């Protein structure tokens, strides 16, 4: 299950979907809104998504992780909307019989999600300016841009 959510992510509910008697390991990742990026003081973030494609591509990433690492369960959720410092922006949870596969799959899911999902982040700076991340027009093709 990969879900885009306009409301705060509920970790207990997400975690409960992973319950599995075969699992000996559960690895989770939380992405938080931080107060700085590339030397600028950040006050808040806006996330926007093309929801149908983001959820479909997110499901593909979860399926890839299950197939590649042999994990038991994999779920993730990503916020959209205006988030404050410290808010939970993304949550990934993976279960496996043993911890190594769960760590590897969790890392795979968040890395692929950042690179592939049609989700955009606008930073609001203490200076009063804003910027859509990775959308500056200088630099090379999209595939070579640093990922947020």
């Amino acid at each position: 299950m990969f879900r885009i959510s306009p409301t705060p992510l509920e970790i207990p509910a997400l975690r409960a979907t992973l319950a599995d008697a075969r699992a000996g390991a559960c690895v989770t990742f939380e992405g938080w809104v931080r107060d700085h990026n590339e030397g600028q003081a950040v006050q808040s973030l806006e996330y926007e998504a093309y929801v149908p494609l983001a959820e479909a591509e997110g499901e593909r990433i979860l399926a890839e992780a299950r197939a590649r690492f042999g994990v038991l369960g994999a779920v993730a959720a990503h916020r959209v909307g205006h988030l404050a410092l410290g808010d939970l922006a993304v949550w990934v949870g993976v279960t496996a019989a043993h911890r190594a596969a769960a760590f590897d799959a969790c890392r795979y899911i968040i890395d692929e999600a950042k690179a592939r999902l049609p989700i955009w982040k606008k930073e609001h700076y203490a200076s009063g300016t804003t910027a859509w991340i990775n959308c500056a027009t200088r630099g090379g093709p999209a595939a070579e841009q640093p990922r947020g």
Partner: protein
Amino acid sequence: MHELTIEYFALLREQRGQATERLQTAAATPAALYAELQARHGFTLPGDRVRAAINGAFAASDAPLRSGDLVVFIPPVAGG
């Protein structure tokens, strides 16, 4: 000519000033359509930094456009 629906997100939505539009166009591919829209609306992102989706699935920049298609141009992403 065919009639397309276009949805805009993030930087493109702000530069267009609206989230969706219907458009009569002769553009046969997403690349041609983006070039047409960029010229009209002054989009700052070059065409090679924007991916296309047609009817909810990623599509090649030279994929054929058909009347009734929903086209979304995807600026460089930044989730997580």
